[in-house]
């Protein structure tokens, strides 16, 4: 049963990948993708229930492992993938009919999307830190061509930078993993288990702190590069701006959380072994640095997708900051923020995708009066912007307030004040640009009419979920998060 569920979660998207390679008809591989992501999401739900009941699930002698933390991120990833799959169909059909994309390479897109999905799940399901690393490296490889999908100069440039920077980062992370393995070997003596997270956790007290500290530095920089923590975030605006909107959305909602997940795994380990000052200080520093670095780019920006990319940098910073607070409430806020941010980022990027189709531009100055051209998408974008910047009644308000509470509660007064200031300042940039896009008189060359009705329904649903999270968080979710907090406490 345990093994079966792991195989389902991992296998369905992988199978879909392979199927898509061989399917020729457009609607078939589109349907395959949607079905696969939906089934994966269902399997993920089953896994989550199992984890909820049994605290953790493992198979193959601990090779596959899922606890509340992994189940949670899996739910986020599969959910996002489902949304993105549904959106992709309409979006890309529209782009094909507009002549933006060669219909022949449409299949490649779905192949890579499914591959991307499965690599992310690989990270989340393996207990072995080495496999986790392989998974994360594979996400880079799977997305490399997706970033360069449009085959423009700028997208090639973005993809090149993306792959190079990510590879450098991931190489550094691998060194961190080797160091961890080394310290594990000293404590465990059976080389097969010394990379297993659960094993390492059980012997955490015996691990050499100085090595683990070093390892954490490398891992943080490495996976931080993938997550987009400043100053390793530099690929993010390029890649996010150049990739097709649904890919960007999945990167912002899924990949970011996967990379953070990897950091969290190490964070737990290091905290247990080294004590709770070293790693938290680093995370708080990187968190605030990311927020601060993102700020000037949000205050002065020309390109709406880059704007959102920097917002993603900021939110990764928020999550890192919250994790760094090191208190249960901080963990709670961080976890909640992962979910909230994913939901709203999906809405934002996908709404921008719709607007981009209508205006054929992602330059902010050229997009005006969107409320008259694509009323639903513009409204979604606008409300999403408020959700993203932590206004009630949306979920991010709750998570950001939780984080602030935790910050003050943990005695990090000045960092928290800075945090609140940065959150507020980022809003200023976002509202100024988004309101200019949404309001005003539209230009003559814009095409009125929503590109896809399905996407509007889906995105509205997502916003409603965010509202639910912001007003009446389900008790089950609360309990679930409590369980994850227990995991994070070690």
């Amino acid at each position, binding site marked *: 049963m345990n093994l079966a569920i792991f195989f389902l979660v991992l296998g369905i998207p992988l199978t879909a990948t392979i199927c898509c390679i061989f399917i020729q008809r457009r609607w078939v591989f589109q349907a395959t993708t949607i079905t696969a992501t939906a089934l994966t999401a269902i399997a993920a739900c089953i896994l989550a229930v199992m984890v909820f009941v049994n605290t953790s699930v493992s198979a193959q002698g601990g090779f596959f492992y899922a606890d509340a933390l992994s189940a949670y991120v899996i739910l986020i990833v599969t959910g996002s993938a489902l949304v993105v799959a549904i959106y992709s169909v309409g979006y890309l059909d529209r782009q094909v009919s507009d002549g933006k994309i060669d219909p022949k390479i449409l299949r490649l897109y779905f192949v890579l999307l499914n591959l991307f999905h499965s690599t992310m799940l690989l990270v989340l399901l393996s207990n072995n830190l080495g496999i986790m690393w392989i998974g994360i490296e594979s996400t880079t490889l799977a997305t490399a061509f997706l970033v360069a999908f449009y085959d423009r100069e700028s997208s090639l440039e973005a993809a*090149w*930078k993306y792959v*190079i*920077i990510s590879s*450098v*980062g991931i190489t*550094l992370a691998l060194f961190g993993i080797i160091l961890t393995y080394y310290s594990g070997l000293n404590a465990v003596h059976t080389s097969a288990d010394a990379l297993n997270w659960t094993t390492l956790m059980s012997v955490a007290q015996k691990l050499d702190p100085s090595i683990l*500290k*070093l390892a*954490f*530095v*490398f891992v943080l*920089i490495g996976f931080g*590069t993938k997550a987009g923590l400043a*100053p*390793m975030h*530099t690929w993010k*605006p390029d890649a996010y701006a150049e990739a097709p909107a649904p890919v960007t959305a999945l990167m912002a909602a899924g990949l970011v959380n996967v990379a953070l997940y990897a950091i969290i795994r190490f964070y737990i380990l290091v905290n247990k072994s080294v004590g709770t000052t*070293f790693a938290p200080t*680093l995370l708080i520093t990187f968190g605030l640095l990311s927020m601060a*670095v993102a*700020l*000037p*780019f949000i*205050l*002065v920006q020309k390109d709406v997708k880059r704007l959102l990319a920097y917002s993603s940098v900021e939110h990764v910073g928020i999550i890192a900051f919250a994790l760094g607070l090191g208190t249960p409430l901080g963990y*709670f806020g961080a976890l909640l923020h992962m979910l909230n941010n994913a939901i709203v980022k999906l809405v934002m990027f996908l709404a921008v995708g719709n607007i981009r189709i209508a205006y054929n531009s992602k330059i902010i100055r050229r997009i005006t009066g969107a*409320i008259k051209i694509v009323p639903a998408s513009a409204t979604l974008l606008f409300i999403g912007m*408020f959700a993203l*910047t932590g*206004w*009630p*009644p949306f979920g991010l*308000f709750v998570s950001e*307030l*939780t984080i*602030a*509470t935790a*910050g*003050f*509660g943990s005695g990090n007064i000045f960092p*928290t*004040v800075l945090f*609140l*200031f940065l*959150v*507020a*300042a980022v*809003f*200023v940039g976002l*509202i*100024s640009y988004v*309101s*200019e896009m949404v*309001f*005003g*008189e539209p230009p003559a060359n814009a095409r009125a009419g929503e590109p896809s009705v399905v996407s509007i329904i889906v995105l509205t649903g997502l916003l409603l979920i965010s509202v639910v999270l912001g007003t*009446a*968080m389900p008790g089950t979710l*609360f309990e679930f998060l409590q369980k994850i907090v227990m995991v994070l406490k070690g």
Partner: protein
Amino acid sequence: MLFISLGGFGIGAIIGLLLCLRVKGLNSQKLLAAGKNIAFGIAFLSSAAAFVLGLRIILSRQELSVKLLQTPLWGSFSLRIDFLSAFFLLVVSLLGCAVSLYSIGYTKQFTHRGKTGIFLFLYSALLLSLVGVVTAGNAVLFLIMWEVMALANYFLIEYEHESVSTRKAGFLYITMTHIGTAILVIMFMILHSYAHSFEFTAMGAVMGTIPPLVRSIVFLCALIGFGVKAGLMPLHIWLPEAHPAAPSNVSAIMSGVVIKTGIYGIVRVSFDLLGANPLEWWGILVLGIAVVSAVLGVLYALMEHDLKRLLAYHSVENIGIILMGVGGALCFSSLGHPTLAALALTAGLFHVLNHALFKGLLFLGAGSVNQATHTRNIEELGGLIGHLPWTAMFFLVGAAAISALPPLNGFASEWLTFQALLFGFNVSDFALKLAIPLTIALLALTGALAAACFVKAFGITFLGGARSHHAENAIESPMTMIVAMGALAALCIVIGILPGSVLTLLDPVTNAFFAVHIGSAAQLNPGTLLIQQGGGTSSSPLFIALLLAGLLLVPIVIAVAVGGRIRKRIAMTWACGLERIEPQMQYTATGFSKPIRMIFSNIVRARHEIEIENEISPYFRSTIRYELKTESIFHKYLYRPLNRAVLNSAHMLRNLQTGHLQTYLAYIFITLILLLIFAR
């Protein structure tokens, strides 16, 4: 019984919300109008219910607390209506009633279905959140309501988003208010870290354990955070942009009650959450800010000839006057004079109510003018008293009230403020003794300037001859609008004549904070304000009104006795011998305020541009264009440099993203090296 009232209100508001959502689905104009009327009707009834509730709570001297839900993170969300909340509830609901009524007529110009539906939704949401803000008993619930209010308000400001100035105003508003909220979050977090609870009662209970420095920080946070909303100088800059941009009925709500929530917050924090022993410099600081806001607010108002901007600046001024009372209360309270503190706070809160009434009235009047003439520029108006007789009359009442003329309500509260401040002389503190005469003098200056400003506003708009065809063809507003304005005008007069009745309502509020009854400082006759401190002083608006009416007989009798029946002749105004007088010859609003502009030239910093076109020779001029720009000193010396500095540094920092892959790798490299050194 109270629960029924509250429940009725809640249901009313929810029905309002549902209904406006449904309106969006309906198709025909008729249904739209019907839905609109029903929605505003419900808003009216809901407000009325809230009014009854607030009144009951104060009269029955029984606080009300309703637990809404228990949250896992923030403790219990409850509405706790103590006397302060109840008083503000009264203010909110009074204006809510009037404006809802007014809106029925005013929104006839809204024909776009979807937009109107959204308007109704936002309007109801705004009223609901206002009630929520003043009744929330939990800091997080408060923040939620606070933000919903800001959001609803923002969208209402952006209602006419096609114009650039509206978008600018909306941006300024939402930016300022959001930064303010961030500071409020910091404040509540600090309080929470001592109280370990977000409930106001718990926060108030631990005030003794907070060290003075932290208390001061909390106070400053409150002053800045709430000050943004209240429009204190120099945090007011959004206010004169945002209030005019919104539709007039919304402006009335904004100026009348939304900014008062800032006052509510300041009072709530400094007297309730921080307890009864404030530090003295708080009060002095508040007095200072109050004076600056009042004087500069009215001066900038004088420089405006956009009717709604003018009114908006007056809101800044009146917030200053309110804060004089609050600041005085802080001073007295810190020096151990609870009775005086109660008196000062009463004066401030009384002015809260009064300002809500007359400012609401004035904005509604401005809305009627705007609707009738499609312009807010008073230079294009004139002579409207003939076309809009009712509007003119009610606007005049509002203008007189805001100028603190007896026997209207503005006079009563300003008189109380004067009295409260005057007793600062009896307090043995030199700083206060110096601060108070200056405050009094500047309050007098404010009052006089306000009168000057409203002579201008009323005189140029309603009197004389029409300066444009807009003004010539104006027609009077629909009945509901007139009734709403009339009701507010009547309230201005009634409260003006019977101020003691309001003081009775305020007694429990101050009693809760200072544990003294206002009755020990002032006697509470409905019609007379009697201060028993010192040598005793009194003023009786009721008798002033009666005597004014009675003494009117004297000139009438004299006129009839000496001159007999009046003989009248209608003639043209003397035009220095010219054949006839043109409306363009009248004094303009810009000209009217010129002497004051000259006197206060250092503060208002007017720049004028004159363009003259000559046709034949310099003596025969075809057109003269005169443009006057006033620039706020805060814009010039604070916000513009700040804005520039932020943008410049942002531009500079943006060079971090060079586009060079090598640089990016260098970032990683340097970070790695630094961390390696750190980790050793």
